[in-house]
Each structure stands twice: as structure tokens, then as C-alpha cells.
């Protein structure tokens, strides 16, 4: 039987589609590290004037809010004609997925715990720190966070805490992460829309090691968050687009939050506090990487160098209450509010802080899939 012309045409195109899909997926069938080595080798000896020969534009894969010019004002001053644009992700898994999916970003921003994936999958190129004029201001322990197998792949930049942000007029002092599960605040709670974040909170509450959870413990975590779901007004994705407005208009009383939203609400005179849970706050460090496929690696390097410069870092600290990897900026803090926000007046703060651990691919997949099931329930 001879098919009509349109049917034959569509059939051919569908076959092409399947072949393209197969080719696209098989193209990544290389051993981990292979493409990494190539990309590292490709940028090992750039010409001195390489940045001038590159396209005068940068695309940055960022988190919402970080596109504010205050965060990269030094680069803007040094390169007023460079076209810097941003695209956004709202979780580490989302940022990684975009890079895996072929994002054209020159620079990407993610947080501790996810470094290994970018290196293993050849998504990032090695950084020549000798070209970073502000590198010596970054404390050694921060520099090491950006290293994998002794090679510097990432530039640390922002750091801070995750804790409970709460409305002091509606809620008694929060002393534990389990405030997120308190039925007294039903309808006024907001959890971050992120599986690994949920696993971390449950691990703190139960005293479990989040990197060594058993299947039973993960099942318990899943059930706990399913039970907690009706207590939320919503799961937030954007710190400044979702969470802060709802905290400030009184809809949200208790939230999993970063310092930026706390700073915003505090500066606006809202009755908020940032908890010091007995289980400890979570602490994270933000890292920038340069895409292995970047057309402007030298310009990207200059961007990261200028991010570490004094004004950009100081803005992150004073305007958004985020710590910055420039040690000179951090040691010059004398504002009591900032000292309190960073816990600089509490010598035991680091002892009671939970640092974000490295996670494995299996853990990442299990935790994110768990979170999708929680949402569907």
C-alpha cells in the first residue's frame, strides 16, 4: 500500500527525529574526564591578547537576583561595552540540567556539593589562577573548594547560611528546623522547592548523616515531607520573586531561607529574625565555573576576577548580607548587624554549622526523584 505524500513526508521526518535523538544521546558516550582533559588542555596556553579577540559578550547562567549590577559592578566599570546577559536557574539540579542540556552560557554559578559532576561530564574548563589579580585575597580554604584532583576548576565567590526565616510577630522564637513541620503555622510555611534541601533539613532534625542515608531513612524523609506538604502555602523557587514578597506581605511566617531575603525584609523594617537552630544552620559556598564550550573564556576569566574585586564583594556583603570570598572585605566588616548576620561575634558558629557535603550522582537522583513524588502527593 502506497502512503499519501504528506504521510510519507511526516514518516520520514519522524524517523529523522528518532535518529537525531539517538545521535544526540550517543554523542555523550565518552568516558568521564576525557572531555575534561581536552577542555583543560584547550585553555592551558591562551594568547595574551585573547580576550580582545573574543566576542565582546558574556552569557551568565545565574540564580535570580544575582544579575543585579551591584554584584558585578567592577567588571561593568572595566568593560562598559561588554554585553553581559543572564539566564537563570533556581536549584543546583536545574543549573546542572541546563549545562547538560547544552546551555550556551560562558559562566555558570552553583553551590558546594555539585563540583564533581561538572568536571566528570566535561562541562567546565580549568582556570589559570595566575591571571586572576584578586586571587590572593581569597583564603586558601575557599580556593580549595574549587579544586578537583588538584586542579582549579572553580572560583569561589559568595557564601552564607541557610536557616529558618520567621516573622517575630506571629511566631515564637524558632530554635529548631522542625518549625517547618509545626502545624500551628499551617498555611504560612514555605519550603524551598528542592529535594536535596529537604533531605538536608530532615537529616539535621533526625541527627542523620545525609551522605549515608539508608533506604528506610530516605523513605521516612519522603513520608515526613508528604505529611508536611499541606502546611505550606507554596514551595518557593525564586528567593526574591517568590519568597521575599510573601514574607513581607505577611503570607509566610516560617520559611527555609537564605540570608538575602532576611536582609531584604530587615532593611524594609519587617518583623523578621533568622534562626540559630539547635541542630545548626546550613552553610554553603557559591562557585563559578567557565563553560568548556565558552567562546569567550578570557573575558569570562576577567569577569570572575572582577567579581572578586572589592566593590562587587562589598556590595554582596552590605546590600545582600552574603559573605564574599574576598578575605579583605570580610575582615573589614564592622557593622554590628552584619557581624550578627554572619555570626562573626559567635566563636562557636562554625562548630554548630552543617557544611554542604559532596553528593554522589545516585544520591542526587534519589533525592530529586523523591522530591517530585512528594510534590505529586
Amino acid at each position: 500500500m502506497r502512503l499519501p505524500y504528506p504521510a510519507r513526508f511526516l514518516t520520514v521526518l519522524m524517523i529523522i527525529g528518532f535518529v537525531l535523538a539517538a545521535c544526540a544521546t550517543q554523542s555523550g558516550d565518552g568516558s568521564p574526564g576525557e572531555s575534561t582533559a581536552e577542555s583543560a588542555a584547550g585553555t592551558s596556553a591562551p594568547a595574551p591578547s585573547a580576550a580582545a579577540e573574543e566576542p565582546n559578550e558574556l552569557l551568565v547562567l545565574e540564580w535570580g537576583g544575582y544579575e543585579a549590577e551591584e554584584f558585578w559592578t567592577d567588571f561593568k566599570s572595566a568593560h562598559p561595552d561588554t554585553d553581559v546577559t543572564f539566564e537563570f536557574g533556581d536549584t543546583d539540579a536545574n543549573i546542572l540540567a541546563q549545562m547538560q542540556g547544552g546551555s550556551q552560557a560562558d559562566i555558570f554559578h552553583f553551590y558546594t556539593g555539585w563540583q564533581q559532576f561538572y568536571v566528570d561530564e566535561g562541562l567546565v574548563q580549568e582556570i589559570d589562577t595566575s591571571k586572576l589579580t584578586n586571587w590572593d585575597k581569597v583564603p586558601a580554604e575557599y580556593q580549595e573548594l574549587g579544586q578537583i584532583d588538584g586542579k582549579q576548576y572553580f572560583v569561589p565567590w559568595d557564601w552564607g547560611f541557610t536557616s529558618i526565616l520567621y516573622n517575630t510577630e506571629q511566631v515564637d522564637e524558632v530554635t529548631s528546623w522542625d518549625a517547618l513541620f509545626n502545624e500551628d503555622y499551617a498555611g504560612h510555611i514555605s519550603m524551598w522547592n528542592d529535594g536535596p534541601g529537604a533531605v538536608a533539613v530532615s537529616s539535621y532534625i533526625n541527627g542523620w548523616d545525609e551522605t549515608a542515608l539508608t533506604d528506610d531513612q530516605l523513605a521516612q524523609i519522603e513520608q515526613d515531607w508528604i505529611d508536611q506538604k499541606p502546611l505550606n502555602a507554596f514551595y518557593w523557587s525564586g528567593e526574591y520573586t517568590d519568597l521575599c514578597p510573601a514574607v513581607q506581605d505577611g503570607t509566610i511566617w516560617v520559611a527555609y531561607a537564605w540570608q538575602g531575603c532576611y536582609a531584604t525584609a530587615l532593611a524594609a523594617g519587617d518583623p523578621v529574625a533568622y534562626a540559630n537552630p539547635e541542630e545548626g544552620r546550613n552553610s554553603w559556598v557559591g562557585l563559578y565555573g567557565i563553560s568548556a564550550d565558552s567562546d569567550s573564556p578570557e573575558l569570562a576569566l576577567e569577569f570572575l576576577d572582577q567579581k572578586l574585586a572589592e566593590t562587587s564583594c562589598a556590595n554582596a556583603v552590605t546590600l545582600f548580607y552574603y559573605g564574599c570570598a574576598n578575605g579583605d572585605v570580610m575582615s573589614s566588616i564592622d557593622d554590628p548587624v552584619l557581624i550578627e548576620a554572619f555570626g562573626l561575634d559567635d566563636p562557636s558558629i562554625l562548630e554548630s554549622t552543617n557544611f554542604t557535603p559532596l553528593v554522589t550522582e545516585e544520591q542526587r537522583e534519589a533525592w530529586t526523584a523523591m522530591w517530585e513524588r512528594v510534590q505529586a502527593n
Partner: protein
Amino acid sequence: MLGRRGTLRFLVTPPVAWLALFFIVPLALIAAFSLRAGSGAVGPDEPWLASVDQYAELAGTPAFLRLLGLSVLVAIGVAVLATLLAYPIAYFLAFRAGRRASLYLTLLLVPFAVSYLLRVMAWKLMLGPEGGVNSLLSFLGLTDEPIQLLLYSRPAVIITLVYVWIPFAALPIYAAMQRIDRHQLEAAADLGAGPWSRFWRVTVPLSLPGALVTFFMVFIPTVGEYVTPALVGGTDGIMYGNIIQGFFTRSANWPLGSAMAMTMLVLTLAVVLVGLRAVNLRRVLS
């Protein structure tokens, strides 16, 4: 000079090519991904292997299937409400607006000049604790304090979606009513039919094809809706489309997301086919 077949190819090829490139090929890609083992985005460590693992996982996760069923019900509800509310608007435009019909039609289309996101965000403000609805309830003395949970709920999703769809929904019904031969209404009147009888026995049957088109036009995209639930639905209003989006973004699991999308597509088509068979479309159209 082109023959009949040549003319057909000349006319059909451009739109078919467009649809094929931007609809069929992406659909084929999603279908292909849904049949891939493992997880991840593009560039997995393992070669592409045909597998039904994703469908097995979907079938073994009752929460996903329940949410799919719930999303279908929400879509049916939204489609029914949008069709019922759009019907009087279309009737007014077709039979009562007279020479001002084009003016009213233009006014009906004014919301299209505003971004979809802005219109949804407007409802976020309307339903919020200090929004229009709460203010009205307070003004009327029906509430002492704002109802906090008016927003971030499934009803908020339904209200917003119905609002968004009504202008679209009125157009196919209006087009169907425009095609009704006025002589048939006159004949019915001559035979003694009153206004209600003419409406129920002439206007409604003859406008039913438009109403059906409206229903399915609203139902089909609403099943997979994720923007509106994400903005106004909160945790209570999450729909199946939000989970698909989650697997493509948060979870970076394209194969499972693709399997969920294909399952939704098949179920949606099944509902449409069953619906069309139930109303006996051929009889309606004739």
C-alpha cells in the same frame, strides 16, 4: 503549469514542513527519550538503549498517576466553566450586539494585548491577603480579617485559568453562531416556537459544534498546564505539568519527564476521542 497533485504538494508542503520541524520532530524526540533507560539530560555516560523502564516507573508510582487523573478532572472543570461562561458572551455578540458587534469583539480581545504572565500575576494580587477579593469581602462585612488561603489553592488555579480562557473560548462559539441561518429562527417563530424554544431547539444545537471546539480547545492545553499552578496554586494546586517540568529542570531526568509527557498526551487524546464518540460528532456536525 502544475497538475492537481503538483498544486497539492505546492500548497501542503510548507505548512506540513513547518509543523513537522517544530511539532512532529520535537514530539519524536520526546518519544525517543521516553524509551531511554537511565536518567539525566543530554550526554549520558551510557549509550542510548531502548527500554520501557520509565513507563514502568511511572506505572509504579501511584502519586504521579493520581495527579494525572486529578489534572484531567481540573481540565474538564475549567473547560466546562469556560465554555458555559463564554457562551452568553458569544450569543450576545452574534444576536444582540448588532452594529456594535465588532466593537465588543475588539473589547473582548483586549486582554490578548496583555502578557499571559501579567494576567496571571494580576490574579495573584487579586486573591492575595490585601487583594481585591479580600477587600470586597471585608467591605461587605463578610469577613473580619483577610482569608489568607484564597490564594495558593486549587480553586485559585481554576478561577485564574477560566478567566484566562474565556476570551479565547467565546470565539469558536461566536463563529458557529454567525453561521446559523437566521431564516431557521424565523421559520421556528412562524411555527409557533417561543424565544426559549427557539434557543433550545435551534440556536443551541446549531452552535454545539462551536461549543465542542471551545471545550476541547480549553481542555487539551489545560491538562498540561504548569505556569498558572506554579504562580497561584501553591502546594495544594500542583498539577501534573508541574511534575513534568520538575523532571526536565530540577531533577534533570529527561527520560522520565518524557515518559510522563507522552502518557499525558495519550490520555488526553483518549479523553478527546471518547468525548467525541460520546457526543456523536458526525451527527452534531450534520
